[in-house]
């Protein structure tokens, strides 16, 4: 019945959405991935040095070719912003680059032809500084991904934990999962008996029970959160009611803490809860920030796209794994 033409035309119907999502969904996600692992500062702005460093064995003194390549590259940079980025990147790997670079750049610009870097500053005789440059020439890095789970590479290049107190990502990720789990559990505990109740109800009672579930689902998430905010305030309804009943002396701190977050989030499921941004942002306190807020902070607050991307990838990966499990479960359910 269907000719090849008809079948091709039919399949072509899928193209508009495919192209649209390819451009505005897949590509942004890939961009985030790219941001998380890319580290192009040195490879892009010290090209000759990068090329030369490929031949170096990283242990003996760097060859003259590499040294002069560095001088040439430094002379070629005229944008202060780029220089700043470069210095920051190198300094984070090997402290001391800030002052070293300043000195060296001045020396390079004030001269022409070959330059003996050892004379400019003694630090250039220390291979550690050269090694830092060589390692930074890799346009890709795992620094951000490691940092996302509180790990870093030590001097020897092995993976080690970031010292206590310096990075809290793991704690936040854990907290995110914990809150999401609690929300899911609460939802299950309430939802299952409720569903049984709805199934056995009839007439107007059933309609009411269903409406009670569907209305919040429908109503804007923001609205609902606002509503919870107002209710949970110190002078909000819940506290006023409780104090009027004489049950409490001073207002319970329901807002800006865990109870509020869980109570309001209990209406949603785990996957959505994972990516939760709004509710913790508005209702949670500083100790209740979930990973989405941290990601947003890195992105919009401190423009650290690398960290934002890396954390995002961890979250995305977890979500996709769950989605896969969900897909497997629902497939077996429908077949069985």
């Amino acid at each position, binding site marked *: 019945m269907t000719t090849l033409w*008809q*079948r091709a035309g*039919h*399949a072509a*119907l*899928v193209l*508009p959405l*495919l192209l*649209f*999502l390819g451009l*505005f*969904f897949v*590509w*942004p*996600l890939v*961009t*985030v991935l790219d*941001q998380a692992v890319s580290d192009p500062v040195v490879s892009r702005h010290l090209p000759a040095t990068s090329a030369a460093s490929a031949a170096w064995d990283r242990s003996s003194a760097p060859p003259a070719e590499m040294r002069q390549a560095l001088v040439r590259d430094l002379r070629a940079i005229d944008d202060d912003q780029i220089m700043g980025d470069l210095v920051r990147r190198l300094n984070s790997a090997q402290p001391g680059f800030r002052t070293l670079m300043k000195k060296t750049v001045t020396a390079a610009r004030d001269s022409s032809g070959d330059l003996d870097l050892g004379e400019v500053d003694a630090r250039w005789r220390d291979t550690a500084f050269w090694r830092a440059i060589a390692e930074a020439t890799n346009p890709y890095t795992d620094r951000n991904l490691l940092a996302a789970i509180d790990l870093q590479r030590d001097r020897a290049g092995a993976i080690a934990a970031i010292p206590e107190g310096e990075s809290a990502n793991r704690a936040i990720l854990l907290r995110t999962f914990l809150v999401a789990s609690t929300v899911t559990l609460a939802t299950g505990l*309430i939802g299952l008996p*409720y569903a049984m*109740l709805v199934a056995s109800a009839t007439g107007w009672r059933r309609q*009411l029970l269903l409406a*009670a579930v569907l*209305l*919040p689902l429908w*109503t*804007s*998430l*923001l*609205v609902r959160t*606002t*509503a919870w*905010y*107002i*209710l949970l*305030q110190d*002078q909000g*309804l819940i506290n*006023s009611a409780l104090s009027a009943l004489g049950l409490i002396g001073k207002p319970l701190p329901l807002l800006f803490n865990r109870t509020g977050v869980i109570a*309001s989030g209990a*209406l949603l499921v785990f996957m959505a809860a994972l*990516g939760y*941004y*709004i509710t913790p*942002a*508005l209702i949670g306190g500083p100790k209740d920030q979930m990973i*989405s807020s941290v*990601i*947003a902070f890195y*992105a*919009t607050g401190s423009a650290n*796209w690398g960290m934002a*991307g890396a954390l*995002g*990838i961890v*979250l*995305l990966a977890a*979500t996709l794994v769950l*989605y896969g499990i969900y*897909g497997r479960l629902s497939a077996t359910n429908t077949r069985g």
Partner: protein
Amino acid sequence: MLRVSRFIFGAATVLFLLAPLIAILPLAFTSGSMLTYPITSVSLRWFEELATADAWHRSIVNSLIVGAGTTVLATVLGTLAALALRRRVMFHATLRTLFLLPMVVPAVVLGIGLQILLARLGLANTYVAVIVAHTVLAVPFVLVSVSASLDGIDPQVERAAASLGAAPARVYLLVTLPLTMPGILSGAALAFATSLDEVVLTLFVAGPNQLTLARQMFSSIRENISPVIVAAAFIFIVGTVAIGGLLAAVRQRSMRTSAIP
């Protein structure tokens, strides 16, 4: 004993679900500027502020513009894809999974990527940017809704139309589309509702001139909470209930006409 505890459980859950919404609605009519009970006197000043204050007024208009654009774009793309995925085209399971992924992916991650991409495309701070972002989120809803509707169509009915002399295009127009209309309309309504509610992506891609109502509410809550927010919430709720009611009515009508005894 069981009956009593069931009743209490049911009542408590209903209360838990509806209380926040019902509790705050009256506050939209308070004449005071604090969001506390008791309400001493009533007034419509907050609704007036919504309608007249520049920021709010503009945000409502923006929401309508973005909402309309998203609805049209998402409905068209989603409906076409649903029609395509009806037959076993190549990779149709993979495609369907891909098309539904935006529902699941954390919005923050997508927001970052979109912001970068849209800036590169020169679309930063435009309505197009916000509409595109909202459409990505809304399309899965349209797809699911229209697909469900298409699945409910008996393929024999389309064959019957063909046997009676209708060429494939006419079968689509006269039989398939009318029977899918409830699904398309639900999908469109869901797309609009999604756009209306969307805050996270909007935070990343909207410029100062494209702030939607939801975005405006978000800032207000953060910065200076006042009853005007509740007035906006009131409109949201009423609007949502209206859309929900409309959908329920449409579904009732379609069930009556297409049920086969």
